């Protein structure tokens, strides 16, 4: 069950759209639900669907289409690294190798302590600051080096 606070946030999103367009708030509602629950279970999607008056399958379609939704349980922190061409030219593939080794996981895997999930992302629109990491969908970490990654991982573990 989503909290009262989550519903208040969804209501604020609904205010942006004209009457009869509740489905327009589905992306925001799913993001709010994911922030609260860590991932989007079938039950959570059903709850969002009921609230917005949408078929559950339509909500699932959205959740599975956009890459930032977690449709399976994820670690406490999700780290996404961009390895597109501009990032690769700035050494992102080496950064990715460093991260994999440091965390002991490959892409789409979660560390055994449940702390971190590693994801391969695509263009984040910040190529000038490559190599880039996105932490928990909201925090962009720019011009990452081994040292900065060490510090970041330590900070997130706390």
């Amino acid at each position, binding site marked *: 069950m989503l909290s009262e606070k989550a519903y208040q946030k969804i209501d604020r999103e609904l205010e942006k759209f004209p009457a009869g*367009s509740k489905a327009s708030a589905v992306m925001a509602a799913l*993001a709010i639900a994911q922030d609260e629950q860590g991932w989007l279970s079938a039950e959570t999607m059903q709850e969002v669907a009921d609230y917005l008056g949408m078929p559950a399958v339509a909500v699932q379609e959205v959740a599975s289409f956009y*890459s930032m939704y977690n449709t399976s349980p994820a670690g406490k922190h999700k780290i996404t690294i961009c390895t597109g061409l501009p990032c690769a030219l700035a050494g992102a593939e080496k950064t990715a190798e460093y991260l994999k080794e440091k965390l002991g996981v490959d892409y789409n895997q979660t560390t055994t302590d449940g702390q971190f999930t590693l994801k391969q992302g695509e263009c*984040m629109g910040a190529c*000038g600051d490559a190599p880039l990491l996105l932490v928990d969908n909201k925090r962009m970490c720019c011009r990452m080096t081994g040292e900065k990654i060490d510090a970041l991982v330590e900070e997130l573990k706390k």
Partner: protein
Amino acid sequence: MTCLHGRHIDPVVFAGLDGANWRLDGYVARGGYETLRRILNEKTEPGKIIEEVKASMLRGRGGAGFPTGLKWSFMPHRFQGQKYLICNADESEPGTFKDRDILRYNPHAVIEGMLIAAYALGTSIGYCYVHGEIWDVYERFCEAMEEARLACLTGKNILGSGFDFDLHPFHGYGAYICGEETALLESMEGKKGWPRYKPPFPASFGLYGQPTMINNVETLASIPSLIKMGGKAYAALGRENNGGTKIFSVSGDVAMPGNYEVPMGTPFAALLELAGGMRDGKKIKAVIPGGSSVPVVPGDVMMQTNMDYDSIAKVGSMLGSGGVIVLDESRCMVKSLLRLSYFYHDESCGQCTPCREGTGWLWRIVRRIDAGEGLPGDIDLLDSVASNISGNTICGLGDAAATPVRSFLKHFRHEFVDHIEHKRCLVQT
């Protein structure tokens, strides 16, 4: 900090920014909202604003380069129902990162641009669709919008003029395809981002089936200065048929990757110099001049080319979004294409079979060539798959995936042949 280096030439959108003066008071101190106030005070005829934009030769900065004034004139003027204006801030074309800097360092220029556009087009509701991965930028833009609302610059009866415009932010959640106008509309309607058939175009059938204008961040951010200086003066900043300035996002093997705003028609060599030249003094090998979807151009050709739509078209490529990806002599073109092909395979929305299946084929073939497992017929196969995607899809993503493949093979075929014959890379050994 990719635009706060002072290394621009006659900047319009980036003029006077220091990173701290993004708020309303900073924007007003730079002359912000003067144009909007004048328009509302003088009750300028909306058609006159559209004429100024036409005269400016401003072309859409999102990638298509379609004349903005002409696009605005497609909106039905006498339509009595609800019309919408959308700022497309779903920037995710690899190599392009200008909209992020505009939104975080000059958000009010985008808001004023939207207000002027809304006034000219008769729309009372607007949305700004922001790329999913830049949450901090989204939050800042929301803050700027709130400042504007509290200052009566948006909402009902703006500055007592009787003009209404409600502006709302919309946060994407990770889909390259939503930068395509109609996929963006589908996304805003709460669906997966599958592009629509065109026609009808959004100007007649857009958001919720209503007339809708969708413009890029940089396009809208240019509007206040353009109207202030007049269309002709703005056009004169650039060159014939290519009005104004353009922000180029320079990435790859340069000393100082970043955003550089220069007049249209500036030589590529001058732009490269602004970006600090080649990293580690290496030689230039190739340039992808307009975001990852445009044809690659050999470095020596690019060094003789100017940065405007027509000059870049003459050397067989496109100015696109202005994302300039520079590769030096040490780069393997097979490996570089592999990164691009993976991107399109990953981002294909799956609606059209040629793109959904073809982008996977392209990626897998390039991957095996890169791994030294390429087969003798693979280059022909790449050509064939690419040509079967091109022109056979609803939106441009298919062409965007095929174009790099064909241009890499055109200019750097020998590297692909070497990889297949020697079963390894000869460039990086």
